[in-house]
């Protein structure tokens, strides 16, 4: 079945909005001779669709059940984050990061704080590092478990969705106890955290880490050797390792294709090299491998959480540099110097040195990168988010070529997309 080419030769006098010549569609040439094009169908799996995990729109060209071509349209949730970032001080950008990848908000907050701290060259305290590792690994668990639930629904299994939200509620309680918000946590500040963990919080988390693997075992026994699940996922939407690197995939999508690349291992931050965990790597790069990689990653995150809880000992969570961190309220009201620092920081914000920084963190979806360009003022010149789900989704047309229509839904689910991060 040779690839059909679409001839768009005839150019008309009209100019479209950008002043480029508009070419009138001429018609379809190529494909096998005698294949009448009117047997094909254009279908919108559009912005309002239960199986697109948000407002993604896929225009699918169908030959009966076989998909000839998938043309994704994104931007239906473009909210101008990067433009807003240029009007905010650095600590004011943290609430914006919750709303990009809203399935793993804490991981975004931590990544932003680390990026700005790398720009300013601040060394954070030991307890703050361990708390941030806990926040990142908790985000990885809740992001993967909601992916598992929604992908299960897409392929017809409803109960894992309820199990996954049961576990998510338990972590919501922990996040709410720590930051006051279930979803939009805004956990970190440049140089520290918004608050220390409350009393008994670490006991609740330890109790969660003890009972959580049993839920994963249930999901494992339900899916991994389930004939329907294997039939729908094995060998479908596969991508080879070279293609995965060429498409700049990252995270579970890359590791499922057999490329052993994890930012926590290759460019360790927050002392990840001192934690003992393995990085699961698949071989075939199909949907089943992506499922297995994400499932295994949840076990590993659980192990990291337990190790982090063991090494958590009391200490300050904020760096004691008054130019960066607000002095405690009690001192700000009594001691003159603290009040001046408090006033300066609230009115003018933190002023990092002029320069630029790129910091990549291992987010549940892949490598989330923050690229800051600062000119010495309190607001960044440019705040670029390197969105892992955006780049992983760019490989969707290549994955869906020649698959069946039902497989397009499964492949789209396996990419684990969050439209807030894709459309920024």
């Amino acid at each position: 079945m040779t690839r059909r080419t679409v001839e768009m030769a005839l150019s008309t006098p009209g100019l479209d909005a950008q002043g480029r010549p508009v070419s009138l569609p001429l018609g379809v040439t190529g494909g096998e001779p005698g294949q009448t094009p009117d047997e094909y169908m254009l279908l919108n799996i559009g912005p309002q669709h239960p199986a697109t995990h948000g407002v993604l729109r896929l225009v699918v060209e169908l030959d009966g059940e076989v998909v000839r071509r998938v043309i994704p349209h994104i931007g239906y949730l473009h909210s101008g984050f990067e433009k807003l970032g240029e009007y905010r001080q650095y600590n004011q950008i943290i609430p914006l990061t919750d709303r990009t990848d809203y399935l793993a908000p804490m991981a975004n907050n931590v990544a932003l704080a680390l990026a700005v701290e790398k720009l300013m060259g601040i060394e954070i305290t030991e307890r703050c590092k361990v708390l941030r590792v806990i926040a990142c690994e908790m985000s990885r668990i809740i992001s993967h478990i909601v992916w598992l639930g929604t992908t299960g629904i897409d392929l017809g299994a409803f109960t894992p969705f309820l199990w996954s939200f049961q576990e998510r509620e338990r972590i919501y309680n922990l996040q709410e106890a720590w930051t006051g918000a279930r979803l939009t946590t805004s956990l970190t500040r440049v140089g520290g955290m918004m608050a220390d963990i409350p009393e008994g919080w670490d006991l609740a988390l330890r109790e969660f880490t003890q009972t959580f693997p049993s839920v994963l075992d249930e999901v494992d026994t339900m899916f991994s050797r389930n004939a329907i699940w294997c039939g729908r996922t094995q060998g479908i939407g596969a991508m080879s390792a070279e293609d995965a690197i060429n498409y700049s995939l990252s995270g579970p999508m890359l590791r499922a294709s057999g490329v052993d690349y994890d930012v926590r291992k290759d460019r360790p931050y927050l002392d990840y090299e001192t934690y003992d965990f393995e990085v699961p790597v698949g071989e075939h790069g199909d949907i089943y491998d992506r499922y297995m990689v994400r499932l295994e990653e949840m076990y590993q995150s659980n192990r990291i959480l337990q190790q982090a809880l063991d090494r958590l000992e009391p200490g300050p969570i904020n760096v004691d540099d008054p130019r960066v961190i607000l002095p405690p309220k009690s001192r700000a009201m009594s001691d003159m110097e603290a009040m001046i620092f408090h006033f300066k920081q609230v009115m003018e914000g933190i002023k990092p040195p002029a320069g630029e920084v790129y910091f990549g963190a291992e987010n549940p979806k892949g490598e989330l990168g923050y690229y800051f360009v600062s000119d010495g003022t309190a607001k960044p010149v440019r705040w670029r988010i390197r969105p892992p789900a955006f780049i992983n989704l760019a490989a969707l047309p290549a994955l869906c070529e020649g698959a069946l229509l039902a497989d397009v839904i499964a492949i789209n689910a396996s990419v684990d997309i969050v439209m807030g991060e894709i459309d920024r």
Partner: protein
Amino acid sequence: MLQAYIPLLLVVAFVVVNAVIMLGLSHWLSSSRPTGVKLQPYESGMPVLGDARERFSVKFYLVAMLFIIFDIEVVFLFPWAVAFNQLPAQSGLLLVAMLIFLAVLTAGFIYAWKRGALEWS
């Protein structure tokens, strides 16, 4: 002799009346406001190119026809099964008759299978 049918007629009458009431009430009470865009086909919120009544590829009908054939085959089994245990004397003859019927249809099934009618592409 006809008394046996009265309960049946009552049930049918109740069903019909019930259906008519429900449909009538919902039609009468409903506030239907047909508008131009409401009558257009719904495709995930997008304006539709072309209409849905297009020529489907024949593969869909092939699958439907195969289903109908083997569904009717199963339908014939039910009365046979009821008759089978009421006539224990001729059970051997009945069994052989049904096996021949099944054999013919299974031959048809194997032919369709080998011809690739079940694969999709």
